[in-house]
């Protein structure tokens, strides 16, 4: 029994963090989705680091790794609120399409959504996957997309007229990976919001002292840390269950999404409150993480939907076994 990561798995995440720290400058971020998304320097650097080939088999030029090897990378993408369909391409879609050219090196981008749902960053994607129940269909880009302006300029959303596409196997697994990807990014984003709020509380002064010395703020921040710390292990475990093909994988990704979504909503709320009025402006970069959270929480099912999935497994099916 070992609940931790190998040196290789941690080093991969560190490499991604270094790229995101050096390439995703405030200027790149502020320049908008198209420039900083898949056509920008961040996408290029992540391609060179092999991020897009993580789940692509070696015979197709990828690294042939699994969900567990990649989950820390997803967390980093959330920690940085990285723009562009990176997680969607590399993690959600690539395993279904990896025999097609361009997936191992980030030459193509792909996004996915539930039928009738919103496709993020579809304007920069080459391939769209729509999931109806457990049936995935692939739709070539270039169709008629309708832009749906949102609160978050760094994550544009689109709808697609009902279109029939080529059926693909692996829809259920795609959904589980999409849920895990949203949960892992939410944990990363929550950690950033906690860090930012703590940092602000240590420097901002009122009544002649740092506001972080007041117990009312201390307890808010401690409670937030509690939520983040007890969401993260569920995410890691879900990645393990997917990588190992465990029978409980769907239940486990749902459990991860429940606590990750709750932690993230809590993080967004607390970060604004701790920052006060400046937290309510778009002059502060904090907004990118807040808005990423508000998008990721409902995407691929919110906490309510996933709690119901866990209830069905644990209460109705009696699937209470912890480690199959």
């Amino acid at each position: 029994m070992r609940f931790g990561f190998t040196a290789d798995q941690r080093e991969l995440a560190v490499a991604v963090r270094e790229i995101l720290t050096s390439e995703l400058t405030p200027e790149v971020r502020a320049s908008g989705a198209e420039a900083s998304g898949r056509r920008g320097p961040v996408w290029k650097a992540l391609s060179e680091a092999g991020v897009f080939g993580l789940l692509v088999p070696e015979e197709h030029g990828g690294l042939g790794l699994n969900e567990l090897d990649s989950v820390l990378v997803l967390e980093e993408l959330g920690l940085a609120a990285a723009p562009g369909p990176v997680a969607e391409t590399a993690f959600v879609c690539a395993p279904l399409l990896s025999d097609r050219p361009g997936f191992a090196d980030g030459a193509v981008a792909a996004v996915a959504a539930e039928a009738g749902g919103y496709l993020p960053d579809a304007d920069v994607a080459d391939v769209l996957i729509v999931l109806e129940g457990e049936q995935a269909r692939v739709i070539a880009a270039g169709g008629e997309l309708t832009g749906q302006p949102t609160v978050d300029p760094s994550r544009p959303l689109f709808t697609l007229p009902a279109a029939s596409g080529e059926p693909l196997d692996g829809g259920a697994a795609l959904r589980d990976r999409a849920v895990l990807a949203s949960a892992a990014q939410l944990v990363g984003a929550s950690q950033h919001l906690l860090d930012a709020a703590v940092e602000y509380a240590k420097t901002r002064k009122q009544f002649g002292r740092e506001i972080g010395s007041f117990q009312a703020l201390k307890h808010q921040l401690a409670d937030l840390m509690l939520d983040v710390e007890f969401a993260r292990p569920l995410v890691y475990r879900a990645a393990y269950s997917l990588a190992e093909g465990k029978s409980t994988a769907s239940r486990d990704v749902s459990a991860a999404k429940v606590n990750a979504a709750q932690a993230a909503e809590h993080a967004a709320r607390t970060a604004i409150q701790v920052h006060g009025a400046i937290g309510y402006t778009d002059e502060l970069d904090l907004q990118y993480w807040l808005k990423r959270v508000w998008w990721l929480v409902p995407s691929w099912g919110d906490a309510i939907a996933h709690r119901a999935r866990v209830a069905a497994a644990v209460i109705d099916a009696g699937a209470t076994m912890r480690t199959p």
Partner: protein
Amino acid sequence: MDLTLTPQEESFRAAAREWLEAHVPAKPLASLDTQEGFEAHRVWEHELHAGGWAVVSWPEEYGGKSASLVEWLIFEEEYYRVGAPRRVGQNGIFLLAPTIFEFGSEEQQKRILPRMANGDEIWSQAWSEPGAGSDLAAIRSTASKVDGGWVLNGQKTWSTRAVFADWAFGLFRSDPEAPRHAGLTYYLFPLSAKGVTVRPIRQLDGEAGFAEVFCDDVFVPDQDVLGVPGSGWKVAMSTTGSERGLTLRSPGRFMASTDRLAALCREGDRVDPTLRADVAQAWIDAEAYRLYTFGTVGRMLAGESVGAESSLNKLFWSELDIDITQTALRLLGPRGVLGADAPDAEGQWLADFLFALAGPIYAGTNEIQRNVVAERVLKLPKGA
């Protein structure tokens, strides 16, 4: 990452399960906060010890099995799964013993630990005072040096099961001139000693689970000082690390209770989406606690210390325990307030709920734990 168990760990689990299923009393024992129940639980401790299962993580020479941390977690899972009796000796076994292993002399370890392990000596904590609760360093009970030992005076309170227990471990002010954290010493004394008076205090459930302990010129020989005189605060903080960290509330307890909660919901006649969501959330949180504990075990095996992060642990399990038991009471509706001996009662949920309510108070209130997390983990500035 690998959540599977080794063949050795699997056979440890099988042996624990086999023994427990053969020995756990079919009928629940009387409450351990009554004289009759206390003695019945002591008999159970004797039986556990005779089977070799009382203190699995201790070395063999003190009655243990030298079990690894993972094996200890497995034993706890099995213990709670089968619904075995509460551990009447837990304050000694889980709180004092780790401190004795760390600070006790060899003589103390050899003298004290075997009799703690077999249940002959049940220990009670004598820390809090009427004026020293969360502010533990405000202790005013005194210890004065005399020839061959110390003389204790003062009043302790909220001492769990001191009415029936044999020994107490307590903090006393041994140097009134020293700064308040530096003048404390950790003493061990029998509750039958001359000058000790114990007054029971009934808890919310009506039973004498608490006591006040009055010390009037109680002589304690030098051999019953734990650690160096004046180092009581440091020794005590080691105990709180055990209290808040791994040993007090193992994941097995919450895994078993959330599985029972899921069964209660499945079999009950009250179907409501909100209640189902609460049951699922409790189950998820128990799973989160189990996995978080695996992470802690991994860090400990790598030689890292847990430190102030144990406060996160304590916050989480104490809130979770209330969530679980309160959800059970909601599922039961009006039956939830029935005592376990009522004809219509279903299980121990009310008793478990009342017990859970104490969680955010004992072992350092949750307000203190939030301060610890904020100041020592998040490094926020100290308050006024």
